[in-house]
């Protein structure tokens, strides 16, 4: 009997809800945890990430993890993750992370395997809905970028040091390789340039994160960065894209060199209130070449200079109710923040205000409602909006999540 991916997802949801007693499954030193969520999105004008203008339930995910502790300072674990958001994911099950973790001393520890990339304040937890107030994180964590900066295979050296007067310093340094699927969110981002990515090949990846917890209660600040090169083969897509997205020519090689994504961040917790701000920059050189023999000429060489930032505040009113809001800006080309070289000019930015309510029905079940007002078309995919991108969009989201 053939069961579709969607049916498998709902079967998993059903099994989880029926078989768990809302507590983690714990057998001696083996722990099993998981979560499952289902959302609904509707927008008034543009489609955002999915077919939202007519309302969509293609907005769900689930994960299950198992960990075993062998010694107090050594454990191994693995998490499987599946999701569906518009055309991305489609309930394909992936290994989200899987590694061995050995903490030698407070100052140094090692992880080996597939590891979540520690990027900014929330990249590692971007999929874990119950750990935050918002349904959609700000564009610093734009969903399309997930496939590129979610996790990598390699070795992680980490630790922390407690200074007598300066507070606590945490660090993480990762080295390894990154695999990106041809049908990932990044491919969708490339489709807007008229390219259909057929294969990705990413070389060596490095990333690091430094977080300082000064002796000011509730404050943490830091910086993180990812450096990688990326190659992709692409075919010219025949999608009916607006002319400004088209690049003409035969099959192409897409090469992103010395691509650096860095984030500066600060978070301050005052009792039940959390203020956060992050500023992210993308820098690199994009070269697009033809692949046909004898035609090695460079079609295009584009410097990447993308910036994004947000300011957010969340407030936990009671044990079961929390609310939050943020204002975020994304500029695909930070040297042209007014979109003067683009037609229409509002493709040069994405500005967004969001407000969210979160209800913790139980410790394991949360319901969220969120409204976004968006201005600009920089993050609106043309393939989702074949009739053109409008300047303003209002988006409403609902999401129910269960974790154990």
């Amino acid at each position, binding site marked *: 009997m053939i069961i579709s991916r969607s049916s498998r997802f709902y079967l998993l949801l059903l099994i989880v809800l029926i078989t768990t007693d809302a507590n*983690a499954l*714990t057998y001696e030193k083996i*722990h099993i*945890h998981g*979560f499952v969520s289902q959302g609904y999105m*509707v927008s008034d004008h543009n489609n955002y990430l999915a077919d939202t203008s007519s309302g969509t339930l293609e907005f769900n995910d689930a*994960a299950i*993890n198992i*960990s075993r*502790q062998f*010694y*107090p*300072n050594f*454990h191994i*674990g*693995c*998490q499987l993750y599946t999701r569906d958001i518009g055309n991305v994911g489609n309930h394909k099950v992936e290994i989200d*992370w*899987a*590694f061995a*973790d050995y*903490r030698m*001393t*407070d100052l140094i520890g090692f*992880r080996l395997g597939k*590891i*979540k990339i520690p990027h900014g304040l929330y990249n*590692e*937890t971007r999929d*874990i809905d*119950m*750990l935050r107030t918002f349904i959609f994180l700000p564009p610093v964590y734009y969903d399309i970028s997930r496939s590129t900066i979610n996790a990598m295979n390699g070795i992680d050296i980490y630790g*922390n040091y*407690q200074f*007598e007067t300066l507070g*606590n310093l*945490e660090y993480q340094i990762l080295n390894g390789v990154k695999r990106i699927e041809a049908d990932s969110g990044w491919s969708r981002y490339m489709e807007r340039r008229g390219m259909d990515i057929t294969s990705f090949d990413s070389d060596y990846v490095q990333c690091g994160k430094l977080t300082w917890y000064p002796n000011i*209660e*509730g404050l943490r600040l830091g910086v993180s960065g990812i450096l990688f090169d990326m190659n992709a083969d692409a075919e010219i897509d025949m999608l009916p894209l607006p002319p400004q997205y088209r690049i003409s020519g035969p099959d192409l090689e897409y090469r992103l060199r010395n691509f650096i994504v860095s984030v500066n961040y600060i978070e301050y*917790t005052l*009792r*039940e*209130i959390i203020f956060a701000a992050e500023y992210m920059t993308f820098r690199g050189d994009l070269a697009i070449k033809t692949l046909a023999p004898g035609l090695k000429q460079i079609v295009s060489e584009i410097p990447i200079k993308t910036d994004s930032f947000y300011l957010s505040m969340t*407030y*936990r*009113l009671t*044990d079961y109710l929390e*609310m939050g*809001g943020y204002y975020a800006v994304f500029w695909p080309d930070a040297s042209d923040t007014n979109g003067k070289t683009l037609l229409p000019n509002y493709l040069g930015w994405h500005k967004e*205000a969001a*407000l*969210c*309510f979160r209800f913790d029905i139980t*410790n394991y079940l949360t319901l969220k409602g969120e*409204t976004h*007002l968006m201005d600009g078309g920089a993050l609106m995919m043309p393939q989702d909006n074949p009739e053109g991108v409008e300047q303003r969009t*209002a*988006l*409403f989201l609902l999401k129910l999540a269960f*974790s154990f």
Partner: protein
Amino acid sequence: MIIRMFRFYCILFILNCFRIVFISSCAHAIDVKVIVHPGIQDAISVNDIRNIFLGKKTQWNNNQRIRFVLFTEEKTYQAFITNYVQKTLYQYRNYWRKKVFTGTGMMPIMFSKSAQCIDFVNRTKGAISFIPSNYIVSNRVREVILNEQ
């Protein structure tokens, strides 16, 4: 309709922000005492306690591994986490959930009865926990007097 809901949220948000002004510092009347295995003779500071229960300090001075356990009776748990770890209970649970769902840690051991905590600390080298201050512990475990720094 979405814009109307957004306005509604904004008004609610602003109204609730005013409540922040009236928040008084939560005084947790419950006193707790920190207990350790009798073999541990280290001087322990409030900072150490915070780092231990956040999983950042993992060794005693003699390199013995630290094994902390949580006493989950609501009032004592809340008083300890608020006063010593400087997080709300909700924030503390999420802190460990984050570790669980990113693979960087496992949920701490939890007990719902003081006697279970004392028993664990008594028989586990390097162990540390907390119990209500009015609970008599005899000499099976050592009660810690915390340094301010």
